[in-house]
């Protein structure tokens, strides 16, 4: 088991930590000191290890999601779906590099884009805490050259955003969303199309991201672009919140 501090959660979930299991542990005894020091403890473990999941449940953890790591090999030249090509002709990215544009984005997130997020769905937290957590994350990343935040424009209107980072030979989609007022139009495909184009322009070989089992719809979309699941991990949490 490896223990990671997660300081970005401090303002929303309280002091927090993530325990990452490699699957070889059978019945881990969590050091009780962790409970007194952290209000939110997440546990990540490989899918399929029910003995470990039950042991964690016995120690007060609750299941929140299965997290899938996705990978697209650009060298294999996957086909962009025809419908997406039509949509993409009317769309482009625009780097968010003014405070005004950034604050407008945060307002959209505050309005609740990420309704299937594990914190949003958690009865102990909810959509407002979830939104605050994403806003903290983006505030800490805003302006970093290595991890740009781009607005997705459709017919020159901002309909969503992507937050990406180039790492070694791949582009990581860290976060992205279509604003709720543009739901139901199929714009979600642009969240995938634009990072693929960005990676190609940068000469990168792969695009990677993580999605949640709480959002099955987005998996079908990634699949249409040729993404493969390369890892699946259960995520549980224990919280000291009343």
């Amino acid at each position: 088991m490896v223990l990671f501090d997660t300081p970005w959660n401090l303002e929303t979930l309280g002091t927090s930590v993530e325990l990452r299991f490699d699957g070889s542990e059978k019945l881990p005894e969590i050091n009780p000191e962790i409970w007194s020091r952290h209000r939110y403890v997440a546990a990540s473990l490989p899918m399929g290890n029910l003995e470990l999941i039950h042991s964690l449940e016995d120690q007060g953890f609750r299941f929140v999601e299965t997290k899938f790591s996705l990978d697209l090999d650009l060298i294999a030249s996957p086909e962009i779906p025809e419908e997406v090509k039509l949509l993409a002709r009317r769309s482009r990215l625009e780097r968010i590099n003014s405070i005004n544009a950034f604050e407008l984005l945060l307002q959209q997130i505050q309005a609740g884009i990420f309704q299937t997020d594990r914190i949003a769905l958690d009865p102990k937290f909810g959509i407002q805490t979830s939104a605050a957590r994403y806003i903290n994350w983006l505030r800490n990343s805003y302006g970093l050259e290595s991890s740009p935040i781009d607005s997705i424009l459709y017919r020159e209107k901002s309909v969503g955003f992507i937050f990406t980072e180039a790492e070694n030979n791949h582009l990581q989609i860290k976060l992205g969303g279509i604003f709720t007022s543009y739901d139901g139009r199929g714009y979600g495909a642009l969240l995938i199309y634009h990072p693929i184009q960005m990676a190609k322009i940068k000469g990168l070989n792969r695009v990677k991201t993580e999605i949640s089992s709480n959002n099955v719809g987005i998996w079908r979309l990634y699949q249409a672009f040729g993404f493969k699941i390369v890892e699946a991990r259960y995520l549980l949490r224990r919280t000291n919140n009343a």
Partner: protein
Amino acid sequence: MPKPHDDVKKILNFILEKKGLPLRNQFEASLTLSGDLGLDSLDLAELTVRLEDRSGIDVFQNGIVKTIGELLAALESPSTP
């Protein structure tokens, strides 16, 4: 000049055919795009673009469109952007 209903019917049947689903002679106003017709995100993208191309109208400009009836209403009486 084709009526909005004819355009919608043609586009929806084109999408249904691509999905391997049976074509429909009629699309009742109460049918929902996602639930009853089974349109997923990519299908909705295609519908959005093809309707824009044919009518020049953004049928979604006044909010989310869920049913055939709402779609036709938006095409027949578009509001000024």
